[in-house]
C-alpha cells in the first residue's frame, strides 16, 4: 500500500493517532483510555478542566511521555516502537512546540532562539538565521531579533516561540496553553498568527487550552475528562 497518511482520499485518515491511552503517575491515573485522531492541516483543541489529563495526552502524542498502555501512531509508525534517539529526531524534524512560558533560551538572542532548531539539524548559521528572520517577520516581531527573551514583552516572547516552533516546517505543532500568560489582545494575536501560519504550511495543531475563546480558533474540539477523551461531532 502506498497511501500517504497525510492525504487520504476521504480526508479522514489520521496523521497522528492515539488509541486507548493509559498513563499513571504513581497511584494516580492521568489517562484512562484517552484517544485522539489528528489529520494533516487541522487545528484540534483539547479542552477540559485542570487535572483532566489533557497535558498528559499532549505529551504522549508528542512522544515526550510513553503511555503505560495504548498506542500512538504518527504516519503509521508507532512511537513506542522507536528508540529514544529516533523519537528525539522526530520531535526535532516533524513536531514543533509552544508552551505557556519558559521555552526560550535566555542567553541567546531571539533570532538565535528561532534559528536554534535548524542549527541542531546542522543547517549552516547564515541560512538558519536568514530563515529565522523570515519567521520573525511573519510573526511581526522582526524588531526584537537582536534582543534577548528577557528584554521582550510577554506577547513578543510568545510570538518568537511560535516562530521557533514553525521554523523547521513541522507537520504537527503542539501548543500547551500558548496564551495562558498573555492578556486578551496579545493572546488573540498570537492565536491568529499561529493558526494562519499553520494553515499556510499545512501543519496540524494540537492545542491544549481551558479557554473557550482560544479553542474557538480550532476546527474542532476534543474534551478530556477524568483521563478519558471525547471527540465532539461538528454541530450542524
Amino acid at each position, binding site marked *: 500500500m502506498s497511501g500517504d497518511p497525510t492525504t487520504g482520499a476521504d480526508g479522514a485518515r489520521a496523521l497522528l493517532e492515539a488509541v486507548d491511552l493509559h498513563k499513571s503517575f504513581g497511584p494516580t491515573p492521568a489517562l484512562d483510555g484517552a484517544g485522539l485522531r489528528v489529520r494533516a492541516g487541522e487545528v484540534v483543541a483539547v479542552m477540559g478542566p485542570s487535572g483532566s489529563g489533557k497535558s498528559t495526552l499532549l505529551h504522549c502524542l508528542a512522544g515526550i511521555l510513553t503511555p503505560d498502555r495504548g498506542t500512538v501512531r504518527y504516519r503509521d509508525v508507532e512511537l513506542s516502537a522507536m528508540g529514544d534517539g529516533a523519537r528525539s529526531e522526530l520531535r526535532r524534524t516533524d513536531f514543533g512546540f509552544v508552551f505557556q512560558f519558559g521555552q526560550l533560551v535566555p542567553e541567546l538572542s531571539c533570532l538565535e532562539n528561532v534559528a536554534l532548531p535548524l542549527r541542531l539539524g546542522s543547517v549552516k548559521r547564515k541560512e538558519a538565521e536568514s530563515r529565522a528572520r523570515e519567521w520573525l517577520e511573519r510573526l511581526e516581531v522582526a524588531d526584537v531579533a537582536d534582543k534577548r527573551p528577557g528584554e521582550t514583552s510577554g506577547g513578543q516572547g510568545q510570538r518568537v516561540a511560535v516562530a521557533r516552533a514553525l521554523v523547521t516546517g513541522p507537520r504537527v505543532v503542539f501548543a500547551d496553553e500558548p496564551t495562558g500568560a498573555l492578556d486578551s489582545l496579545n493572546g488573540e494575536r498570537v492565536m491568529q498568527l499561529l493558526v494562519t501560519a499553520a494553515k499556510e504550511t499545512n501543519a496540524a495543531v494540537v492545542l491544549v487550552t481551558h479557554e473557550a*475563546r482560544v479553542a474557538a480558533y480550532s476546527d474542532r474540539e476534543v474534551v478530556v475528562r477524568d483521563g478519558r477523551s471525547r471527540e465532539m461531532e461538528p454541530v450542524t
Partner: protein
Amino acid sequence: MSIGHTLLGLLEKGPRHGYDLKKAYDERFGHDRPLHYGQVYTTLSRLLRNGLVEEAGVEAGDGPERKRYAITDAGVTDVEHWLGTPEKPEPYLQNTLYAKVVLALLSGRSADEVLDVQRAAHLKTMRELTKRKAAGDLADQLICDHALFHLEADLRWLELTAARLGQLKTAVTR
C-alpha cells in the same frame, strides 16, 4: 425556557396534579419567576392536545384542577429530543440549561451528554464569530467580542457544572 418540556420532564417521575406540578416547578426552577396557575393549565391542555400527556384519573370531589396527568411515550420521546438538542447559543441561557441538567439527573439520563452537546454548539458559534472578527473591521471585532465574552461565560458555567454533577445529583435526588 420551555415550560412545556420542563413540566413533561417533571412528569417522568410519575403522574401529578397541576397544582403539584406547579409546586415542583417553582421549587426547582421558579425562584425568580414562579408559574401562574393559568400557565400550568394552558400548558397541560396543549400537551394533552398534542398527545404528550394523558389524564390519569380524577380524584373524588374534585373540580377540573384535581385531574392527574401522566406523560405518554410520545412525551418521553419529546423530552429526550429536547434534552439532546442544544439551545441556540445566546446570552442568559442559564435557566434553561440548569433545568435540562437537573431533569437529566432526575431521570437517570446523562447530564454530561447535555453539557457536551451544548458546549459543542457554543463553540461552533464562537468559531463563526472568531472568523467573522478576523475578516471584519473594528466595529465588527467589538461586536463579535461582546458576544464571545458572553458565550465564554456560559461555557465556564458549563465546565463548572460538569465538575459538580456528582454534588448536584445528590442534591436534586435527595
